[in-house]
């Protein structure tokens, strides 16, 4: 039988499964052995089972407007208990520091007065929303959910690539990938002690309830606010609402009245306490942000200001997660926590600083250039893979607007064996762990979205750029005092079927788009000096 690993090569990077083509790493011994016992035809059969599983549950991903099955590679990515301990504590540390930074920036501004972060960074951020200043957070949480993107460098060290503190997506695929894998490789879940991911929606709901402004007055009402079925992440919005057992609403289902938020239901209006919104700040409240937005709810921000609703994640978090703010996070960890960062950044240059700009201009061909504001891998320039024309154009662009770009050293992302055709090849991956802050502690889902760059040699893993994914198996520790002994209940993940989404009653049409009440200031010189 031909070995699936035939011809597998390891370059100048870290391979997550193999130390060398014939020596698996300790945690991967069992998985490697199991994969070697499979023929190409066996693997093909497992993939057919995978596709059936996704199709049965209607799970797709929208790529540039086209619905495709979510690409899950059949080979899982393993994270050992020791490795996970570092990730878990490092992500939690980062979230704690970023929470304090946001509270500070929208509050007293000590970090700016102390000169740790220039005020200009905040003042020029497109995501610094002055309208969010003074809004109290009932339990001090602004980053209810975060996705901290990690990569693993050639030495095997995990590094933070970017922080996502607004509306990080992908967690539904973590849960669904696991359900599918339980069908594809049931025997591997028996031989591996994989920590469960299925309780994410419960943890999310608990944290949203903990953030309610009305905790003392009975059970809070939580809703998930979606831009609608045409949004690329609509599947996730409906998934989370269903799993949490809360209503999935659109802006037109909500109404703010006398600084209280209500949703319209078939049974009348019901007061809402917590909005888990999956709509960008710009579209959330046309009174304060884009006045042409029909996706949000007019007056929502002032309902939050009045203390009558919690918006999760909080408005204005983007000031802390653009790629320029990222460069200050190690300093913020030191400033707020007096700790050293457990997870390092990728070395990054700020192009607004003239010496760093000059340095970068001489090395564009060796670096990665990223637009500060964009996400999802859009606008990225990978120097070593760029043409001379692209490099020249990038030099002009960053000289013209240095605030809009950062430059990063290239990280040789780690690889994991990935099915390509009828055998396995190394493909580069990253990892997005999801963290939930309930105000008491920052809980990191043991797992996360492993994204795969499918073209050979590619370092761009974003699903919006055609990347794939892997199920991420965080292994439980053998030491009962460290990690958990909770083995993933395969039956539990495989059994839950997706219930049909109940149709949601639309509210009365309030007429055309919103119009503006405004007036010009018209005074002139005094008409008479009498």
């Amino acid at each position: 039988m031909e070995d699936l690993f035939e011809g597998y090569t390891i370059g100048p990077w870290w391979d997550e499964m193999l130390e060398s083509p014939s020596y698996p790493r300790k945690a991967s011994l069992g998985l490697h052995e199991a994969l070697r016992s499979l023929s190409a035809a066996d693997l093909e059969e497992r993939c057919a089972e995978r596709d059936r599983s996704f199709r049965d549950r209607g799970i797709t991903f929208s790529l540039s407007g086209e619905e495709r099955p979510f690409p899950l590679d059949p080979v899982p990515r393993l994270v050992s208990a020791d490795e996970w301990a570092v990730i878990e504590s490092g992500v939690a540390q980062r979230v704690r520091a970023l929470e304090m930074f946001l509270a500070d920036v929208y509050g007293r501004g000590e970090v700016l007065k102390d000169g740790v972060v220039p005020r200009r960074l905040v003042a020029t951020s497109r995501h610094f929303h002055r309208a969010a200043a003074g809004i109290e957070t009932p339990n001090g949480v602004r980053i209810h959910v975060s996705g901290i993107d990690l990569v693993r460098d050639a030495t095997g060290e995990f590094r933070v690539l970017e922080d996502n503190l607004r509306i990080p997506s992908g967690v539904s695929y973590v849960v669904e990938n696991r359900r599918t894998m339980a069908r594809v490789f049931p025997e591997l879940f028996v031989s591996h002690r994989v920590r469960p991911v299925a309780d994410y929606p419960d943890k999310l709901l608990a944290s949203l309830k903990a953030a309610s402004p009305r905790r003392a007055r009975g059970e809070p009402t939580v809703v998930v606010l979606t831009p609608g079925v045409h949004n690329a992440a609509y599947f996730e919005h409906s998934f989370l609402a269903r799993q949490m057992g809360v209503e999935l609403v659109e802006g037109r289902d909500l109404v703010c009245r006398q600084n209280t938020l209500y949703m319209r239901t078939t049974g009348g209006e019901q007061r809402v306490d917590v909005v888990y919104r999956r709509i960008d700040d710009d579209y959330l409240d046309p009174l304060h942000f884009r006045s042409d937005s029909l996706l949000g709810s007019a007056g929502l921000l002032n309902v939050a200001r009045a203390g009558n609703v919690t918006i999760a994640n909080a408005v204005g978090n983007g000031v802390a997660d653009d790629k320029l703010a990222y460069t200050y996070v190690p300093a913020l960890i030191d400033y707020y926590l007096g700790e050293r960062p457990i997870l390092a950044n990728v070395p990054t240059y700020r192009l607004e600083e003239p010496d760093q700009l000059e340095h970068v201009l001489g090395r564009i061909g060796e670096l990665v250039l990223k637009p500060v504001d964009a996400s999802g891998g859009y606008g990225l320039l990978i120097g070593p893979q760029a043409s001379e024309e692209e490099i020249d154009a990038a030099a002009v662009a960053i000289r013209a607007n240095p605030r809009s770009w950062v430059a990063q050293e290239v990280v040789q992302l780690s690889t994991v064996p990935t099915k390509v055709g009828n055998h396995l090849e190394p493909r580069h991956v990253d990892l997005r762990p999801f963290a939930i802050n309930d105000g008491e502690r920052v809980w990191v889902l043991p797992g996360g979205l492993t994204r795969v760059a499918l073209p050979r040699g590619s370092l761009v893993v974003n699903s919006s750029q055609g990347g794939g994914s892997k199920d991420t198996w965080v292994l439980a520790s053998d030491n009962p005092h460290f990690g958990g002994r909770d083995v993933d209940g395969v039956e539990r993940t495989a059994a839950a079927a997706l219930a049909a989404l109940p149709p949601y009653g639309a509210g009365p049409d309030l007429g055309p788009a919103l119009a503006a009440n405004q007036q010009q200031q018209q005074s002139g010189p005094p008409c008479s000096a009498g």
Partner: protein
Amino acid sequence: MSWRIATRHVSSYRYASTVFASYNEARMTPVASHRQSVLESHVSIRPTAPPLRYVDYWATTVYAFDVHEPHDNLVVTGSSVVETAGAEVLNEDAGWELVHRPDVQDRYSELLLPTPYAPLEPALRDLAHDVGTSETPAQAVASVSAWVRSAMRYEPGTTQVSTSAVEAWRQGSGVCQDFAHLTLVLLRELGIPARYTSGYLHPRVAAAIGETVKGASHAWVEAWLGSWQPVDPTNGEPVGERHVTVARGRDYADVAPLHGLYHGGALEDLEVTVELTRVA
């Protein structure tokens, strides 16, 4: 010398057909400062709506309210009694080295950056340096203010609420909002932190106590010269006891007296009246 002034600012919106829902924020409450005490202030709304009162990022008092009863008119009235102080001379002590110090430039960075109403304009950049090259920033502020007055004709109706400084400058006319925005462009170009200031101006230098006169909402500028110093580029007079300060920000968008949205018919008529009475 200080004055006590009673202000009454009425904004009356009349709609062509019934409005079913309306969301608004009123910035009509004078701000307390070292040169102005607020003795009384109140905002009333018709149809009645219980407002949320809060202080925004710029330290302006805001009344936020929504009206859900069907209505054809919305009337928002801001009333206050304030005590204002006499004019101060611009601080000549502050030199360019203070105003341009990196920590000062960072502290006031958001008041040095271009905005939609006060955007970057290459032609105004050269002009700013021609007009504003002076020994002290205070002289530059005075020169810029005088230049704006010479370059612009005061003519209501030639600009709208949305007109930018550059548009107004190109046509050479506008109202106090445009004079203030143009001044901001030039001062910021010179590296002088500057903010848009809105409020009221009592039109009479020798106002009789108890006499109510028609005024208008007014706008001027404050420049940072070691401390915030006001300058009124529209009429060139010192900012003193006749000026009532309500709100400050980067430009008009931060201080709009009434900002809102409504579902329903078109706006048929907007009437804004300001009445000012010197009471002491």
